[in-house]
């Protein structure tokens, strides 16, 4: 059974049909790529999957459960976490606190426990710190744990966003242009990180990317989106050699 099963998803903004009849099946543990020219509706698909927009038609099923129409918070609790194209960190919080906000729903104590510093506070905070540092070390960020998030260089901010998303213990991780603005060395490093995340966390990843070296390097399957519609879907090598895809996207 597929982990994520999307059937005939569509949304209209007024007269504009931004996404139409979008279907995708992602199996557990797959590294899946979503590509397409600018304005094709890739980020809109992400926003539909995470409940930022409500789809006008179609269904989204995660792990056998219908999550269509849920809001962002509920969908995250069901197991979809994401990063953003334009980085959205909690800038005034420290790096470790950003991850600890991600851990929020998995490590709980009440507001009263926090205010009166009951034993539960110290116990849970200690566990949260350990878990957060463990996650940060995967991304080589543990040395920067107590810096403000806004002080990190760009590449590390991207990694921190992934770490924060992973902290919510998702089943499916959505990465929106993780390599945007990175140089080739950083991109190569990011590819290793994404692979490591998939292997170590047993994660399923769906990513949007323009950088073809990253897409062809790590994605096992691809979907190509053009003008809100699916152009082609399948194994990476097959898709990238498809003449229609080359015309629409890679240029003639």
């Amino acid at each position, binding site marked *: 059974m597929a982990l994520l099963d999307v059937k005939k998803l569509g949304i209209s903004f007024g007269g504009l049909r931004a996404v139409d009849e979008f279907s995708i099946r992602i199996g557990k543990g797959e590294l899946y790529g979503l590509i397409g020219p600018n304005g094709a509706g890739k980020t809109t698909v992400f926003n539909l999957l995470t409940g930022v927009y409500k789809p006008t038609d179609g269904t989204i099923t995660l792990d056998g459960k219908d999550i269509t129409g849920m809001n962002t918070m509920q969908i995250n609790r069901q197991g979809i976490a994401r990063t953003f194209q334009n980085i959205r960190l909690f800038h005034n919080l420290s790096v470790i606190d950003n991850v600890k906000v991600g851990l*929020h729903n998995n490590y709980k104590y009440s507001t009263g426990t926090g205010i009166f510093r009951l034993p539960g506070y110290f116990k849970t905070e200690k566990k949260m710190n350990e878990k957060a540092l463990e996650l940060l070390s995967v991304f080589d960020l543990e040395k920067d744990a*107590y810096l403000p998030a806004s002080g990190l260089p760009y590449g590390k901010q991207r990694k921190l966003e992934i770490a924060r998303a992973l902290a919510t213990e998702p089943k499916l991780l959505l990465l929106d242009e993780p390599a945007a603005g990175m140089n080739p060395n950083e991109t190569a490093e990011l590819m290793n990180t994404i692979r490591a995340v998939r292997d170590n966390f047993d994660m399923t990843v769906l990513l949007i990317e323009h950088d073809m070296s990253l897409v062809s390097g790590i994605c096992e399957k691809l979907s190509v989106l053009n003008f809100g519609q699916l152009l082609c879907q399948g194994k990476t090598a097959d898709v990238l050699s498809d003449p229609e895809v080359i015309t629409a996207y890679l240029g003639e």
Partner: protein
Amino acid sequence: MKKKISPMTRKSFVTYGLLVLAFIAVEILLNTGNISSMMKGLLVPICVYSILAVSLNLTVGILGELSLGQAGFMCIGAYSSAIFSNMVKETITEPMIRFPLAILVGGIFAAIFGLLIGIPVLRLRGDYLAIVTLAFGEIIKNVFAALYIGYDSAGLHISLKSQGDLKLAADGKMVINGALGISGTPNDSTFEIAAVILLITVIIAYNFVNSRTGRAVMSIRDNRIAAESVGLNITKYKLITFGLTAFLAGIAGVLYSHNFYSLQASKFDYNMSILVLVFVVLGGIGSIRGSIIAASVLTLLPELLRSVNKYRMLMYAIVLIVMMICTSNATIRGFFVRNAQKFISLFKKNKAQPEAVKEGE
């Protein structure tokens, strides 16, 4: 790795220490008689305004939403506790029992109203929220100004018309007399109690900020969309913060009402809300220690400047402007921070200062 005290913990304990030192200093001055009666009268208000500023800072600095209804919550706390104290002052004569109960009554009533008002109001953001909270504050004040409450052997009598409308029995007593307000409230607030409550407020505020809830609230302030995407319930955390702010403001109201023999609702007008906001902004938005300093300085200032009576308001304005520049201008603040660091490093030689995390307190 060596166990380190986190910068936040250090910051909070420095503040507690400063508060205790200030308290001891004032107590010494009081006991040696080196303090004027005018200043003595200001001690409780200083604590009250500090509590108000710290609590408003939770909404303005930590949650990042502008609320101008602080005086309204203070009013609810002041009135509900004054009614309580007036009714039980014959049965419970010991102020050390009566006053803590009054504080709880005031705080809880204010918190309930804070939550009730928060549910519709917190859907708004920015300027709109400020306008609506300002209106709610005014509504609360005006309702209390038109309220007549008395009690007799048959229980409480409430009216919005006039004193005669209450139809009190011969043994009845008035508690709230419309625009004339409450009179006969026992003078239970002392500087010592107010100072202890201020300290507790500051501890609550710091512990709140440095907890799971506080982190969630600050993440909502920093990026709402990202906070939603990691599964935070935005409405819940906004309401918790708003309720806590109202609770603490209510307690400040209790201290305030028990400091005066009579009290009118007109005291809790929007000027009071704006004044508290000025304390928060001057002390630095998000800085709890700054709020207390600003509230104390600005409450004392008119008194200290009595000697230069003619130029008093002029000096007040200058101090306001200078404080504003010093706390909000990054260049000037950086200048002070750098010099302070140099000064500290004179004492701690060859010890590299770990870079502190700048957080919303």
